């Protein structure tokens, strides 16, 4: 009964992965098919020493790190706010959650054109109104702009997870602490924060897994440019493989991306594993 | 009819033998209670009889037939679970009727049986409701109704009253006993509450750590406990045990005296053998009062009439007739 699922996933893992590994050891370009030759680790060497590789790594780190910081801090603050008694909490929740359900291509294009466009975007109009020069978001800070868009998309996720965690806080424990004389700030540091820490860790790990693979937002806004200013590792491999048709090099890049993701995954699996026992 | 026999039945989970080899016979129409502390194996034993667990060795005979390898559905038994285990998505009517549906009974016949069972259990007004809309006691009765319609060889009850509040528990106890009178079907009932055991059973099986300590009628177990365990388990409050020189006086390793057999007086009177002690905590129930009396190195519990005026710190004298002193040897077995 388990076998179809297990076999399918096994196949999904082994076959394409195996092929990627295999290709990474070949000199294989789609423009000259039939001329593949074995080159060992050449592709890796070439890929790793290419300046665009390091640039893409920095960009990836910037993207992932930036989004994490914004969403975790913003998410925590928002979750704390939403956990307070306020009027119409349900509706506010719904407003805050909505961006997560917008497809990436839509959110990227809406932000780029209707908000960040230096001539007709809303921000430009706002800047003009305030007497400032409009800022060319995508021209001058393409990577940061993408980071802002992705943060908008993932803030709801972090907020929702952290809010869920907050709402599972043991009310009786808080009351006991209050009886013991702990004020609001101390209760936060000794009770709330440790409880939240676990949820924050989960949010960081899960978001990282997904953020490493940011793709659509880059493709529809900058195509990785100008130059490679907004290219992350995923996009670099994509360009290599499907635009430059370099299957060998692209595969090597793919393997490297997998290794990086695995490192994060190991931590996540450890956390989940601890939870399965609970 | 509904006889159940266990022959050398054991049960092992991994390496642990939770049920030691057990021989037991439940006669047709008997109300048998398995009682014992948590973890003694009483629920496991019930589940072995039901067929929800397989025996590790031994035989289970139902009505003389070897049922050891027969699946639960075909053993002709019905079980009432501690959590009632009602089907939440079905109405009371469908819950009770489910076993009949599984037996492919035609609906006219089934409806008649369902209504009859509902009538006995006062559920007729609730037939269309779902379990979520019922109180604990009502859900209890639906679970019993579901068992009744199957007209089984025997009913199995797994601590059915544990989830009810105290008052309801007393009521349901009576209802189940009355049900037994009416249906005259064999019932095997598991509980950790010795009051339930004493008041409901024809025969009690006292279990401890997978072993049968004693089998007998309630009064049998009360008057003639075979060992220390049974003596201390049956009877509330617990029997007082003393060893050392108190026991030596009676030629035993340990002696036991039930709180209700003490005579309590405020002066020594003629009896030179009484124990002198100071009253500690007193529990007034109105009809009775229970005293905790500190005597030398022991603390004894005594029951006195609620009328007697005794207070914390008073000096009292406890005496008892010889025939009310239980004597036990080093192994804890009762001496005649």
């Amino acid at each position, binding site marked *: 009964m*388990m076998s179809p*699922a297990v076999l*399918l*996933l096994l196949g999904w893992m082994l076959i*394409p*992965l195996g092929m*990627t590994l295999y290709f990474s050891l070949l000199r294989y370009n789609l423009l000259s098919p039939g001329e593949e030759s074995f080159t060992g680790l050449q592709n890796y060497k070439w890929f790793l020493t290419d300046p665009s590789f390091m640039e893409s790594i920095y960009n990836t780190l910037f993207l992932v790190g930036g989004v994490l910081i914004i969403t975790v801090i913003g998410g925590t603050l*928002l979750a704390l*706010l939403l956990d307070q*008694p*306020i*009027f119409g*909490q349900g509706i*506010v*929740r719904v*407003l*805050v959650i*909505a*961006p*997560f*359900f917008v*497809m990436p*291509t*839509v*959110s990227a*294009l*809406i932000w780029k*054109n*209707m908000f960040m466009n230096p001539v*007709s975007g*809303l921000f430009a109009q706002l800047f003009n109104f305030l007497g400032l020069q409009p800022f060319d978001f995508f021209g001058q800070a393409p990577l940061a702009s993408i980071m802002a868009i992705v943060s908008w998309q993932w803030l709801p996720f972090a907020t*929702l997870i952290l809010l*869920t965690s907050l709402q599972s806080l043991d009310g009786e424990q808080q009351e006991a602490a209050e009886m013991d004389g702990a004020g609001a700030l101390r209760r936060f540091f000794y009770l709330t924060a440790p409880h939240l820490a*676990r949820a924050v860790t*989960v949010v960081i790990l*899960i978001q990282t*897994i997904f953020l490493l693979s940011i*793709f659509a937002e880059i493709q*529809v806004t900058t195509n990785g440019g100008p130059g490679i200013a907004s290219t992350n590792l*995923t996009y670099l*491999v994509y360009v290599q493989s*499907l635009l430059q048709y370099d*299957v060998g090099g692209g595969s090597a890049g*793919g393997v490297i991306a*997998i290794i990086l*993701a695995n490192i994060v*995954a190991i931590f*996540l699996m450890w956390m989940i*594993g601890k939870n*399965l026992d609970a | 009819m509904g006889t159940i026999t266990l022959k050398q039945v054991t049960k092992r989970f991994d390496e642990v033998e939770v049920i030691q080899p057990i021989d037991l016979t439940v006669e047709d129409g008997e109300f048998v209670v398995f009682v014992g502390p948590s973890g003694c194996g009483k629920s496991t034993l019930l589940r072995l009889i039901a067929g*929800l667990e397989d025996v590790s060795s031994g035989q289970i005979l139902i009505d003389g037939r070897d049922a050891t390898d027969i*699946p*639960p*559905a075909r053993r002709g038994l019905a079980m009432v*679970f*501690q*959590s009632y*285990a009602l089907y939440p998505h079905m109405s009371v009517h469908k819950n009770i009727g*489910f076993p009949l549906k599984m037996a492919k009974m035609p609906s006219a016949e089934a409806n008649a049986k369902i209504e009859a069972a509902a009538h006995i259990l006062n559920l007729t007004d609730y037939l269309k409701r779902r379990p979520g809309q019922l109180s604990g006691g009502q859900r209890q009765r639906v679970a019993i109704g579901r068992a009744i319609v*199957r007209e089984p060889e025997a009913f199995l009850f797994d601590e059915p009253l544990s989830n009810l509040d105290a008052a309801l528990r007393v009521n349901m106890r009576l209802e189940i006993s009355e049900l037994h009178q009416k249906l005259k079907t064999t019932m095997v009932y598991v509980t950790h509450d010795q009051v339930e055991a004493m008041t409901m059973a024809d025969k009690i099986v006292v279990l401890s750590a997978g072993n049968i300590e004693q089998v007998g009628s309630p009064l049998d177990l009360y008057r003639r406990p075979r060992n220390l365990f049974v003596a201390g388990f049956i009877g509330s409050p617990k029997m007082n045990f003393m060893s050392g020189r108190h026991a030596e006086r009676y030629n035993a390793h340990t002696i036991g005296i039930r709180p209700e057999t003490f005579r309590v007086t405020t002066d020594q009177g003629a009896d030179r053998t009484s124990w002198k002690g100071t009253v500690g905590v007193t529990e007034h129930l109105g009809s009775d009062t229970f005293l905790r009396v500190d005597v030398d190195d022991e603390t004894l519990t005594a029951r006195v009439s609620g009328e007697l005026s005794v207070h914390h710190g008073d000096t009292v004298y406890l005496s008892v007739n010889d025939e009310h002193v239980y004597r036990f040897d080093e192994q804890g077995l009762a001496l005649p």
Partner: protein
Amino acid sequence: MARAISPRRKVLLSALAWTIGFLIFFPILWTFLTSFKTEEEAITSPPSFLFFDWTMSAYEAVQRRSDYFKHFMNSVVISFGSTLLGLAIAIPAAWAMAFVPGKQTKNILMWMLSTKMLPPVGVLIPIYLLFRDTGLLDTRTGLVIVLTLINLPIIVWMLYTYFREIPGEILEASRMDGASLMNEVVYVLTPMALPGIASTMLLNVILAWNEAFWTLNLTAAKAAPLTQFIASFSSPEGLFYAKLSAASTMAIAPIIILGWFSQKQLVRGMTFGAVK
């Protein structure tokens, strides 16, 4: 807390929360409003908020330009198709793991989850080449297959957690009541599992609808779902804000509505149970 909160504090906090909520939601609201403007209206300065001539011209233009309906159907087929296929494979697996757990069950479950963490770019080339050579490129079938595989771990996982919540005693009771395995599954297990299955379905449809890596790379014209369709606005001609808004509104509206109902499922499915 049942204690009195100062009304002033509640009002202040509410105002803050509503302001932030509104700001976060604003881009979506703005898109919706702009979709009813003319192209010229869409770029007026200062921007008009509610008081303008509402018109459906943008919607008509979008439909005329590139058969929005076809792309919508592609999205529907791909998300529902991969969800149903995923459920068909996952239900037996989750059943086995929840009710007949073996020593390896936990490990298998963890391994399944780990496959979700594979960066898609790592298998982009082989899948692309395989699909090209088997004629699956730019087909709905191909996408259904890929999306089923990438979401299978989440589906199995969610079903597993829902199945485990069904009290074992109820299944035992059905066995005592004479139910065969088949009867047990049909009359007791499935009805009790239905809410969990529905929740899983809901979340998965949302995830598949919004999936943008494989849908962008493996489709061109025929099987392109809405993600791809919207992407075509990245190199536009002329004024296009209203049209972009109209296309976007149509693309995201169904999912936002579904999303509002699926918050709990989102937490359960996306954190793999690590947050309760």
